[in-house]
């Protein structure tokens, strides 16, 4: 069992897994404990501020619940590769960033090997905001994945740069002006650290000054922090609901005791209680799971040029000016000129000198709406 995230959801998840009878749990988190975590991350105390979340959480739960082994890793999920993820039965996530979720989702989808039942790792994902949250079960390659539902995210409303620069109207415009335009102008290459109170104070003062200049009211320190760090309100109770839902699904999957969630539950608690449980559909052409590699048999002695010609003959792929890459090298770039010149010599090389048998080749082409992935197998 792997759990990524030891924050608001993570603390709850770790406790729930331990009390659900899971004996061997790994937990990954790259953050250290901040005082603003204490209103919900109940495994941490004032004295723990500054320590790694994963380590403190693991120690606390092992002390409280006998017989459970928890292995913490203080670092990023991206530090680990498929070999690491392969050891787990199931992955459960309480992450706070879209980027991290996309990464773990793509990694688990890619790991699915049709020859190996062990390679399919159910992914359970939770998220909260204020009184609302959602939990979902992702069966990589079998159903909707995280990437399939990216459109459901409401994008952060951005204000035109020129509004910030010349016609601010809202306190938030003054704050964004301070962080996006004024900081780099005055500080040059010095990086803005959202967690440094001195930096926030600087932004706050600049924003306040600008707001006064334009007769705008409402800039506060707290708002400055909120805008700059994109703070999402979070409370213990919502985390408890979502984390418990995730762990409940994990337990059902692992024990096959009851049907598991298919595949999405939204919980909305700000006006009465409303939940919506539904099956989110896999997206056609999803760049992660809707685009799985298929096998393509080729002769190791073919030149790359020959390989491309054969591809063009395939009736089910309409390609004209393809670009081909593998994870480790560019094979051939149809454009722009610089990259085309660089990769042209590969056209005369033999496949065996460019690829290993079974290696994946990714192909883009103006004629393809998405991309094409082929496992090139030498025969």
């Amino acid at each position, binding site marked *: 069992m792997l759990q990524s995230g030891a924050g608001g959801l993570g603390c709850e998840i770790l*406790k*729930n897994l331990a*009390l*659900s009878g899971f004996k061997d749990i790994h937990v990954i988190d790259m953050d250290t404990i901040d*005082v*603003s975590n*204490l*209103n*919900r991350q109940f495994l941490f*105390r*004032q004295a723990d501020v500054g320590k790694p979340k994963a380590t403190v959480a693991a120690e606390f739960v092992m002390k*409280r*619940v*006998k017989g459970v082994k928890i292995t913490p890793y203080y670092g990023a999920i991206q530090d680990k590769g498929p070999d690491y993820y392969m050891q787990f039965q199931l992955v459960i996530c309480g992450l706070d960033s879209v980027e991290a979720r996309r990464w773990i989702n793509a990694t688990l989808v890619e790991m699915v090997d049709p020859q190996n039942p062990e390679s399919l790792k159910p992914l359970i994902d939770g998220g909260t905001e*204020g*009184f609302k949250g959602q*939990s979902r079960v992702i069966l990589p390659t079998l159903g909707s994945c995280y990437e399939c539902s990216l459109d459901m995210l409401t994008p952060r409303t951005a204000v035109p740069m020129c509004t910030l620069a010349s*016609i*601010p*109207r809202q306190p938030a415009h003054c704050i964004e002006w301070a962080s996006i335009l004024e900081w780099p102008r005055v500080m040059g290459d010095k990086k803005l650290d959202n967690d440094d109170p001195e930096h926030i*104070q600087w932004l*706050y003062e600049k924003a*306040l000054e600008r707001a006064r200049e*334009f*007769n*705008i009211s409402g800039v*506060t*320190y*707290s708002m400055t*922090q909120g805008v700059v760090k994109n*703070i999402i*309100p*979070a*409370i*213990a*109770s*919502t985390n*408890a*609901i*979502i*984390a*418990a*839902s995730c*762990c*409940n*699904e994990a*337990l*059902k999957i692992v024990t096959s005791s*009851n*049907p598991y*969630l298919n595949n999405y*539950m939204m919980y909305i*608690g*700000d*006006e*009465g*209680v*409303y*939940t919506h*449980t539904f099956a989110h559909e896999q997206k056609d052409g999803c760049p992660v799971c809707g685009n799985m590699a298929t096998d393509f048999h080729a002769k190791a002695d073919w030149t790359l040029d020959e390989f491309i010609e054969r591809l063009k003959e395939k009736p089910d792929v309409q390609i004209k000016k393809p670009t081909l890459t593998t994870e480790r090298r560019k094979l051939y770039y149809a454009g722009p000129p610089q990259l085309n010149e660089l990769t042209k010599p590969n056209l005369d090389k033999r496949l065996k000198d460019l690829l290993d048998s079974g290696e994946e080749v990714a192909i883009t082409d103006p004629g393809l709406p998405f991309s094409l992935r082929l496992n090139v197998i030498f025969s």
Partner: protein
Amino acid sequence: MASSIPSGAPGSREKKYDRQLRLWGANGQNKLETAHIALFNASATGCEILKNLILPCIGQFTVIDDKLVEEADLGVNFFLDEDSLGKPRAERAAALLGELNPDVMGNYIIDNFSNLLSTKPELFEPLTTPFTHFVLVSPFPTPLLLLLPPEIPTFLVYSLGFTTSLRVSAPIHTIVETHPDSLTDLRLLNPWSELSSMATERTTNLEIQQKVDGDGGMSDHEHGHVPYLILLLKYLEDWKQSHGGNYPATYKEKGEFKVLIQDNMRTNVPGGSEENYEEAIAAVLKNVREAEVSSETKEVLNDTKCANLTLETDNFWIIARAVKDFLENPEQGNGLLPLSGGIPDMKAESNGYVDLQNVYKYKARYDASLVEKNVRTILSSLNRDPSSIPLDEIELFCRHSNFLRRILYRPLPAEFSTLPDEHHKKAVCAALSSWDADTSLIHDYIALRAYQSFVTETDGRAPGDTDETLEVDTAEMTRLAELYLKEVGWSTGLGERGKNMIREVVRTGGGELHNIASLAGGIVAQEVIKIITQQYVPVNNTIVFDGISSRTGTYEL
């Protein structure tokens, strides 16, 4: 003298509670910190509920339980540890929960509800009890439930295997800060004189293209920065002139009105269109409408509490009455509520926007000052200090005046008496005959009702608690469920899901699953927080969660 910039940096409490203050503010936090929650039954579910209330900092909690910690507790309750074995649950749970937050005071009583009711009745008297809210995690025999004082908000919780439910009962609950998506009220069809004059002034030369600087025409730059509210007001006036004094009312007319705006947009500009005009067109359907009083606010203003004020009446009802007077007074609101005063962001130059914003802000302030006058008059007439309600509170109320809520919670006896009232019968039968009755969670509720009757009969023994009694208990639970259905006037009997739920409840033998206990802890804590802070809208009055299908159902029972 140079004006100094306030540091503004938050204090340690603001830092610690930052993520929740962004939801309920200092107002909500102050209320939370004066609450004293009594938990009856230190089960896993009970402890999880308290955890989620202690972390955000309620004032105090008291754990009431008379059992000793057993091995089985450790497998499901995070707030009991090995050292606790054999010791009183109340004491140990209070200690381990207390560690969560040094700002919260924890207490415990080693006793049970039934005993306390006779030995310490003052704990249950509204005037003498130290508790502000009761949280009960079943089992409790029904007669005890009927003795709970209706004046104290009570949260009755069931958590059995994959099923959990919460019943909220409380005295009349009022909410000002309901947190709707937007408080905006633009009054486009009910403009007051300052707003109308601003619209006229800003648009006198709207149609004249400036050729050279100072020729009296409007430059493209200026034209593209007239706030869309001003544009709408101007073109609504134009429309009225050409339509016999009427505003566009129907969908079709609004469509034509959009075309009118479109036709006046300058297109010979960089980009070929003007953003402010596009914003105006996009706002027509939603914002070109008469200002109306919402049905929820009408409910509040028409409540008898508004009419019959006494010295003891809450501020909420006094201000509500003042708002009602404002609404009905031709010299004041004349049919309209006090203005909320906010406007959305829109394409405009800084000055133009801030000036427009001020017109709304000043009008809102003026309306609130009239309501304040009414409040002071009412307070005097009640022989209360006329300044005892601060202006801040009145202004907050006015801003939210179209989004008020009052919830009349049904008392527990109306649901749990041997003969439930008509409302209850109707609500259950309606759910049982709805289109989704086959999968409805009302069946889970019925199974829990049978469980409630069972524990009442057996004085707390859970059905299915030993393997030997499994069959007998299932039969008895079925009988009790059928009996209950008869009481509510449902003649068809227990359906398929109902039977399954009975089996499911018996199978648990009264046991909790940690995940469901934890989930219940979250649901209940959310509702407790909403009731304490009087913000957001709590559930009325029952929520059931089924952990097998991961669904909830809410019912007013």
